[in-house]
Each structure stands twice: as C-alpha cells, then as structure tokens.
C-alpha cells in the first residue's frame, strides 16, 4: 500500500497519524478532558490565528521566500484596528477594511523590496520585523489600547447560530463529494489514470465524517466559533487559488525553478510581490481576530508569531527550498502545534518544557520528511 502512494499522500497520512496520536495521548492523560466539547472548541479557536497566518506564509514559502515580519506586522495591524476602534470609534466595517488594506500595503511593500529591488526576503522581512514593531510602539506610546467595542468582538469571540452553521457544513460536504466526482470524470476523459474509486470516496467519506463530527461537538458547546468559519472560508479560497488559478500555478513554478519560469515569459517579479501582498492580507485578518479576542491592541501582540506560522508550514510538509507545499498541510501543522500547546497547558507542563517539546517536534517533523524523501 505504501509503495503505491505518492510522497504528498504519504505525508498527509503521517500528519493525520501524528494528529491522532496526539489526541489519543492527551485524552488519556487528561481523563478525557482534552476531547470535551468545550476544550475542542477552545483548541480550534486557538488554531485560528496561527492557521490564518500559515495560509499566507505557505504561499511565501512555496515561492522560495520567507517572511519574518509576520508577527510584528500582526501586532501593528492589530494595533491600528484597536486605535481606529477605541480612539476614533470607526464603524466596524471601516475598521476591517482599513486594516485589511493596510495589511495589503505592508505586504506589497515587503514584496517590492524582495521582487524588484532583489534584497533577500530574509533581510527585508527582518527589517520589517524590527520596524513594524517600532511603529506599533510609537503609535500606541507603548500602552495597551482598550477596551475595544462590542461590534469588534464579533470577529473573534462570537459563535455562528446553529441553523447557519449546520447548513454551511452540509453545503461544504456536498461540494467536497461533487468535486471528487467531477475531477474523476475529467481525468477519465483525458485518459489519466485515476486512483481506485474506493480509495478516493473513502477519503471523501472520512473527510465528511470528520467535518460532521466536529460540527456535532461544536454544536454541543456553543456552536461554530466565528474565527473558525473565517479560517475555513480562507482555507477554501486559498486552496482554490493555489491549485486552480494561473497565479497559484506560477507561484509553484517560481519556487520550483525561478529561472525557467522567467524564461517561460511569466512576470516573476509581479507574482512574487503579489504573494507578499496576499500574505499581508492574511496577517490583517489574523490581526483582527487577535485584537478582537484580546479586546485590546497591545504593543507586544504577535511577538514571535512568525515562527509559529513558519513551523506550521514546515510541519505541514512545505519545503523551504520552494515549490512544494499545500494550504491544507499548513493548517494541519497549525493544528498539531495548537494541540500540543493546549494539551500541555492542561497537564500543567511548565512553559519551558512546552517550548522544548515544540522545538523537538519541529526538528522531528523535518527530519522524517528528509528521511522519507531520501528513501525514495
């Protein structure tokens, strides 16, 4: 069975296995508290911020670049949102719009330096990491901007009414099955070998039952948390962009071989800049969720978040050499990291141990990846 699997599938399988292992371990260790509806709801709400950051970061890494400014940028954008909301009492929609546009602008700024001025992204975004944090502290005078309005709280703290939640998930499941069906049809038409129908539909069935199970658990607590719905929507959009659009295709090509892609007439510079722009927008969304959850804009917000995002991508099978990676993998990576955090906190593991364990997991994940690739 393993021989016939592609590397990407093997990776997915390994990730699911790791996830299962983590869930089983913590469930036993916490006498089932880990899998209580309340905790699961909390856990995936915690995943939302790193998850959204990872969605943007995965594109950056696939294009063989890196963005270290994400944490500071999230702090700065969250601070801007808080200032607009608390100091100027902007309507919520304006606040969201201005924050997202600011994220786009900051991302494009990074991208312009990288793509057109040829400064290595490591340096550009390291500069951003320092400067954005500096701007944030300057703007807020180093004090927390609070309390945010009740309307801003909707973004990060509310839950979706159960009727809506159920219909959204049902729609999603139908879409998933339909997609498997149409893809098989298309492949058949072009004489490309399909995987066995059993295997593919079994995969779809598992996905549907996981979604249903999750829905059931969440509904038995307070419903689907809004940030998770936002992240879910972004996952769908980003996966579509990565897999089915010319832009996504070009990002993979650039990461795979930038010279050959340029020789193929692709506007490599513009594509790269847009990748950073897209990443900036994802950071803005994450910033809004963060500020809303904290109910405040803090000058220290988002510290080191870039490392969590990068770790999530890498654990999720994204190659730092570029050209390889997937949105879903990055989300799984974020989920694994959040589960470890959550589980260890429940067990009262000291913070220093949590850091050590997370570091080891990161190392282990990449080591396994390197090993399996070599074996092939």
């Amino acid at each position, binding site marked *: 069975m393993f021989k016939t699997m592609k590397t990407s599938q093997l990776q997915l399988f390994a990730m699911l296995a790791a996830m299962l292992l983590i869930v089983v371990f913590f469930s036993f260790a916490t006498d089932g508290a880990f899998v209580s509806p309340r905790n699961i709801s909390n856990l995936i709400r915690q995943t939302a911020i790193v998850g959204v950051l990872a969605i943007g970061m995965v594109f950056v890494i696939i294009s063989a670049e890196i963005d270290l400014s994400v944490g500071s940028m999230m702090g700065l954008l969250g601070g801007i949102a808080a200032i607009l909301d608390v100091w100027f009492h902007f309507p919520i929609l304006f606040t969201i719009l201005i924050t997202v546009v600011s994220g786009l602008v900051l991302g494009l700024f990074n991208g312009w330096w990288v793509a057109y001025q040829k400064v290595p992204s490591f340096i550009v975004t390291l500069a951003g990491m320092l400067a954005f944090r500096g701007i944030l502290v300057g703007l807020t005078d180093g004090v927390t901007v609070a309390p945010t309005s009740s309307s801003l709280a909707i973004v990060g703290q509310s839950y979706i009414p159960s009727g809506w939640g159920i219909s959204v998930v049902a729609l999603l499941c139908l879409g998933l099955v339909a997609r498997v069906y149409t893809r098989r049809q298309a492949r058949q038409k072009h004489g*490309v070998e399909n995987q066995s129908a059993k295997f593919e539909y079994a995969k779809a069935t598992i996905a549907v039952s996981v979604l249903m199970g999750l829905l059931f658990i969440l509904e038995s607590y307070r419903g689907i948390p809004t940030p998770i719905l936002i992240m879910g929507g972004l996952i769908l959009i980003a996966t579509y962009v990565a897999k089915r659009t010319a832009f996504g295709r070009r990002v993979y*090509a650039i990461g795979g071989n930038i010279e050959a892609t340029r020789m193929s007439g692709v506007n490599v510079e513009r594509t790269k800049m847009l990748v950073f722009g897209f990443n900036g927008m994802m950071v803005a969304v994450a910033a809004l969720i963060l500020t809303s959850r904290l109910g405040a804009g803090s000058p220290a917000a988002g510290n080191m978040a870039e490392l969590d995002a990068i770790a999530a991508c890498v654990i999720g099978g994204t190659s730092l050499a570029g050209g390889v990676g997937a949105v879903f993998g990055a989300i799984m990576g974020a989920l694994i990291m959040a589960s470890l955090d959550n589980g260890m906190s429940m067990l009262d593991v000291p913070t220093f141990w949590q850091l050590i364990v997370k570091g080891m997991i990161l190392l282990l994940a990449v080591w396994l990846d390197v090993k399996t690739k070599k074996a092939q």
Partner: protein
Amino acid sequence: MKQPLLDMRGIIKSFSGVRALNGVSIQLDPGEALSICGENGSGKSTLMKVLSGVWPFGSYEGEIYFEGNLVKASSIRDTEALGIVIIHQELALVKELTVLENIFLGNELGSFARLNDEEMHRRTSELLARVKLDVLPDTPIRDLGVGQQQLVEIAKALNKNVKLLILDEPTSSLTTTEIEILLNIVSELKQQGIACIYISHKLEEVLALSNWVTVIRDGDHIDTRSAENLTQNDIISMMVGRELDELFPREEHDIGDVILKVNHATAKQAGASRAQVEDVSFELRQGEILGIAGLIGSGRTELMQCLYGSYDGNYEAEVELHGESLAIRSQRTALEAGIAMVPEDRKRHGIVPIMSVGRNITLSVLSQYSSWFGAINEDQESQDIDNYIAQLKVKTASSELSIKNLSGGNQQKAIIAKCLLTHPKILILDEPTRGIDVGAKYEIYKLMFALVKQGMSIIMVSSELSEVIGISDRVLVMHEGRLKGQFDHQGLTQEMIMNCAIKEDTANV
C-alpha cells in the same frame, strides 16, 4: 590467465520492480578505454552509479571485481579510495575557489590548523602540467572556460591516484578544439596505464578514443565489440535496434521573404571591458532554418538572449519583425511578438523539475486558459497537453509525472511543446540536441522540418558542426562577439566553418 583491472559480472539493478539493468558485464584492462553507448534511459548512468558506489553493494545483483578483489562499496568515497573516479556531465567544482583549492578540496595537505601551501602549490603545478593546462594554481575556477574546468576535474582525479577514470558526457558542452585537447589528454593517460570508461553520444569521439565499445539498450547488454573495424552506423543500429537511413533527414521546403531584421546588436556585461556581442546584423526569412555556429564564448547564446530579452547585461539591437520595429525588453515582450526560445541549459532555464510534464508544457500560456479571476480551465488545458504530448511523441507514463523523471530528449520535446503552444513565428533553438540520444535527435530534426514547412522560421545555435550543416539552410559563424561569415549550406564543409570560427586566433581552450 591475466586478471583484468575491472570485471563487472552480470549486473542487475531494479527500481521498484522495473529492471534498469539486465545482466550487463564489462571487463577492462589498465591503459584501455571502453566506451558505453546507448540512448538516454538505456541504463548507462545506472551502470556507472553501480560502479562508482552511488548504489551501494547489496542494492544490485551481480559482482564487481577491481584488481581481482570483490568491491563492496557503500559510497563514492569507498570507490574513490580504490582508484575509481567519475567525472560527471555537470562539473562539481566550487566556482568561488581557486584551481588549487578545488584540487585539494577534502584532501588538503598539512594539519588541521596549518595547511601545507607550498607542497600543494608544487603538486598542483605538476598536475596542471600533466593535463597541459596553462593556468596558475591560484586562478579562480569561475575565470576558466568549461573545457578548462573539465581539465581541472581530471587533474583532481589524478591527484587521487586514479586507476579507472569515468568520463560521463565530458564533451557535450565543449567546442571542437576543446574536445581535441581533452581527447589528447585522455590518450596520454591511457599510455600512463590509466583505464578509462567513456560515455558519450558523440560517436566520432567514441571511435577515435576507445579500444572497446559496449552498447546497452533498455538495460540489456547488446554487445561489446572491438572499436577497430566498427563504424558509426554499426553503433547506431545496435543502439536503436534498427537502421537509421540517415542522421539528418533534410526535407525540401520553401523559403519566403525576410521577416526578421536585426541591426547592430550589441551586448555587454556591466563593468566588462569586452562586449559579448558586437555590432551584429543579420536577416531571417520565413520558413528558413538559420544555423549559428562558433566557439563557446563567441557570443552565439548571448545574441539569442538579446533577441529573446533574457540577456542579463546591457544590450541594444534594432529589431524589425514584419517591417515593424520592436523593442524587446523581456521574455514576455518576445513571446508576445511571436519569438519563442528553447534555452541552452535545460536544467537551469528549461524545466521546473518538480512540476509535472503537463504543467511545464502550459507554463507560458496559462493566461490562455484563465477566466477573469484567474481560474484555469483544466479541461481545455488537458486537451492541449494531450495533443502536444502525442504530436511531439513525448514519452511519458502520464502527463502528471514530474518532468525530472523523463530522459533528456523527452524533457527537450516537452520544452519545445511549451514554446509551440505560444504559436511563435520565430523559434530559437539553442543547442537543441545537446546530451540527447540519437532517436530523439532524429525526431527533433523531423519536427524542425515540419515546422518550417508550416511557415515558421527557426534559428538554431549548435556546437555540433555536422548538425549545423545537416539541418540549416544558411549558416552564420560568430567569432569573439562578431559575425565572421555567412554560408549557404550547399557545399559547406566543417573545415570551412572551423576556419571561419577560429580565424587568426590560435586555438584557445
């Protein structure tokens, strides 16, 4: 009975059930040279990987004896210790380091704290003299030409006390003079008792150099024959398993009006003293195959880069396409104007290795399939991919296979498909058949004639003079950045081109 230096017996190597080598046996005495011929994908490089220890003992069937002892190598380091050194097609020198540093990389003399520079300097000079390379030991590698780098590799091998030297396609990027020098060196090494295994598609060299010729086809050992009395056609028919009526299938085609005029093309690297292309003017007609010959470094490739907008320095050229002047500033403008190029360096500029064959083919024309928000119509895309794979006979198990798994010839066909999808009026082929087996070469030539018959014009840069003469309608010869001569293919000989390409300048490697 005398023991051979190398004795490989019944080597079998399988990859996930598929036999890449099916019982290959070769023997070699000191001072002899054996050439291994076969189409790409026939198993030559697998055999060399088995011999050099890339595939460790135990991962293959059969035995290897070297100087009478069974070889149980687990890595290249083990075989190098025995005196088996392989020099790859892609040179493995560190460009930033000097000749000396490269030769002693990993084998530095002296203690960890203090290197014995004097001794290393003396030994390097000796080695360089042995390979007749007239450069100082302190010259950085990046200042040397490809041919000179090849010689440094050989010097490096000599430093390791090589007994068996394996050369994998050593001449594929060398010019005729450079090849001659390399072949002379190898002959001398043979006289000094060093055995040599030579892998090449260039059959002239194979016959000139070797004592034995082994032909492998689809992993099977077809035959090993003495090189005496063997002709190129014998080897080719053993390689392809059928007689090729001719190497160059020239077909008559009509040549129309001038469609492209290039005037005063000049290209120069920032800060360089000499221009790589200097005031070159030429014309191209519709339906014409224009060959461009010249030594490496003569500015052939750079001239093409100016036409395609990919030159990485400053360049200027008055280009007129169909009577309209055209400023080519990037690959995009070239493609939009109807100029497509198959680049010289397939790995660096041609393929995106981890992407599928299909996706490589459509990379240039993604916007053709995209809706307003960029979604790709995969149905339409697959149709085009299927069509072109069939039309160009790209041999691949599936269009979804990574292109890196294909042989060089099939990768090249996929890159040509990528260019053809842009529906170019002018197709530039820079070394289109480098490192490609005879069968695929033949198909590419056939394709070129089919294309010009449809009215496309082709510019072909090539180091293989027989190819330039065999395929082109007209030949331009470049020398040190300038256009030195123009010939019609009728009555053109290799000597005429070489004389023109070298001119007053003496042979410089």
